[in-house]
């Protein structure tokens, strides 16, 4: 079954590492829906969150290929784990006086914040699961979305579990055997 997979990739923070990861996925015909990169809790280790569509076999193969990169420390497919997966969106929506109240109500429903306003626009910020951002956008579309930017998902497992550069701790086995070549 083809479905979006949520991967957390821990990498050594060296120049060019992101290029290696992205180039490898391109080379193996894996499309990237979204990718976010930033520091992790460990110095020298960056955390990449990827949303990539594919079958479970495709993703397992991509995971094994990622492990072949020297700088890749840990790849975890968290798609079927209990996770919090959020993205952030900034939305500049047309908001003439007669629509403003309605838009504010919708924003409230989604816990979106007003960041900026002008006589004809509102700038909303929303953080939440991807599908909720989609819903907010669907509700706003009829007013006219002037500008939109989404960060792509970042994810973290719930509870006591912990993904680190060394592995996923606390009872949950890594999805793929560690081992690089």
């Amino acid at each position, binding site marked *: 079954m083809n479905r979006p997979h949520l991967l957390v990739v821990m*990498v*050594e923070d060296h120049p*060019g590492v992101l*290029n*290696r990861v992205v*180039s*490898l996925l391109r*080379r193996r015909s894996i499309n990237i829906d979204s990718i976010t990169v930033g520091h992790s809790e460990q110095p020298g280790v960056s955390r990449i969150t990827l949303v990539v569509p594919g079958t479970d*076999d495709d993703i*397992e*193969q991509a995971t*094994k*290929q990622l*492990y*072949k*990169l*020297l*700088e*890749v*420390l840990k790849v975890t497919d968290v798609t079927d784990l209990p996770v919090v997966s959020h993205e952030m969106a900034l939305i500049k929506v047309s908001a003439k006086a007669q629509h403003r109240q309605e838009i504010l109500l919708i924003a409230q429903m989604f816990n979106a914040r007003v960041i900026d306003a002008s006589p004809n626009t509102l700038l909303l910020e929303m953080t939440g699961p991807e599908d909720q951002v989609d819903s907010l956008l669907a509700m706003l579309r009829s007013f006219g979305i002037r500008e939109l930017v989404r960060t792509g998902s970042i994810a973290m497992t719930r509870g006591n579990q912990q993904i680190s*550069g*060394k592995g996923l701790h606390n009872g949950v086995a890594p999805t*793929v*055997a*560690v*081992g*690089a*070549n």
Partner: protein
Amino acid sequence: MSTTKTASSSVLPGKAVTNGNSNGTVSPRTSPETLTGSQITCRALEAEGVDVVFGYPGGAVIPLYDALPSAGFHHVLTRFEQWAALAADGYARATGKVGVCIATSGPGATNLVTGLANSQLDSIPVVAITGQVGQAMIGLDAFQETDITGITLPITKHNYLVQSVEDIAPTIREAFYLARSGRPGPVLVDIPKNLFQASGKYVPAAVRERRGYQPTTTPNQRQVRMAAELLNNAKRPLIMAGHGILISGAEDSFAKLVDQTGVPVIFTLLGQGSLPESHPQALGLMGMHGHRHVNRALEECDVLVNIGARFDDRATGKVAEFAPKAKVVHVDIDPAEIGKNVHTDVPVVGDARQVINVMLQEVEPRSHDAWLAWIDSQRDTALEAALEDRPDWPEPYTIIKALGQATSHDAIFTTDVGQHQMWAAQHLGLERPNRWLTSGGLGTMGYGLPSAVGAKIGRPDLEVWTIVGDGGFQMSLNELATCVQEKLDVRIAVINNGYLGMVRQWQDLFHAKNYSEVEIYGPDFVKLAEAYGATGFRVTKDSEILPTIQKARETAGPVVIDFVIEPEANVWPIVPPGASNSDMMLHRFEDH
């Protein structure tokens, strides 16, 4: 004064066969010496036990070449950087050590690309050192600047752009470790020109511990036991012998396994030589140009044990119909190969030698006489007879057989790519490991002669032949000059059909004989050899084959034999591209 720590203490486990300085030990020096980056590069190469490098100078590496005359290794000047990369590849295959090539920035570096891709696809340990423009110029599209680390990203095991003179030695150390450990491959080290010129302290480097690189060499016992159990209970088992057996130096263990289990063995193109072909259980080449009985055996086997091969499509044919009745065991050091192309029932990740050694304790003594006899009954005897009896031309089959016999199956044979390569694979009769050097994964035309240069330099004690087509030879024949300059007794058998024969064969069989751009004019190869200062012979009759081979063997220096063969001889059998191995086309009698 501080004492430099010896490197051996923190060296990670490497492969069995490494360059001289295998355990990474370096003699302690009392204080770090101040040297130029060029000298440090040479020291670091010496520390790896490098005895020869293949290269070509140019602007960005002139400072490095300045240090070469006092380096403790020989430099072979090839006539093209691609041939330097492929000579390093041939050297590595023939010796089991890491091959080294050097090129300048820009065009020198890009000329390495095909050679590195060749080593990547065949898992050959090569380290390429390239010069780069000075650091201040990087990114400015300077003269002869190319982003060679970007370009080679997908065709190297790893690559580096060195950032400081202190980083040169540790980077080269790590490059060698990566190239030869785990699944071997090419590693490129790009060094900016100003770092060659800068001074720095030379500290013999230890291999850095890298958390993200921990090859699995020791197999999971339970997996091996499951594999052995399948073998123990199989009625029609087959072992598919791949290159990994040779890379891990497992030939001896493998022979024991084969004897103990009684299982018939088929070979991938690169697996040849892992078991003597004269062994009663050795059946020969599989796949696109595999023997009929071998591909038939694949159709019927109930257990297939692939040791050290990646299920390349040229070996499997249409995967959906590959070994349809078999439970599949796949032994590979690279976990990413498991299940990539062919569904695997029992995966075993580990070094082939270690896996086989564990397996030896689990397999029961068996024999499979009836199964072997059935396979034998599937031999294409009609083809064999037809091949024997064609007196009018020097027959490729006869030439290849004669080459194997005349050299007592002990010479190193490299090949180019095309029909001659497949005839050689089918009929040389490979008896010893690491004597068969051929471009399998990339199918790189031009490979024959440069790989023979590398092989002869690495193994001067062995007779070295290359079997080339008239097309491929015309790509790399400038290496004749290298052979003459280096006084190399390399013997070149040109299988001359006046065609890009393999392409012509496909046009013949699959494109209604539309011979588009395959007729290829060539020079008089005998005169050409003489012009280079080599020796040339021509063979136009069957009866001249053996005597000429003998004459060539007795001649010092490089020798070219121009074997003029029937222009339209085809390689049989052939599995049409995309078809199942069971749909192989046998020979056409009108051809004979």
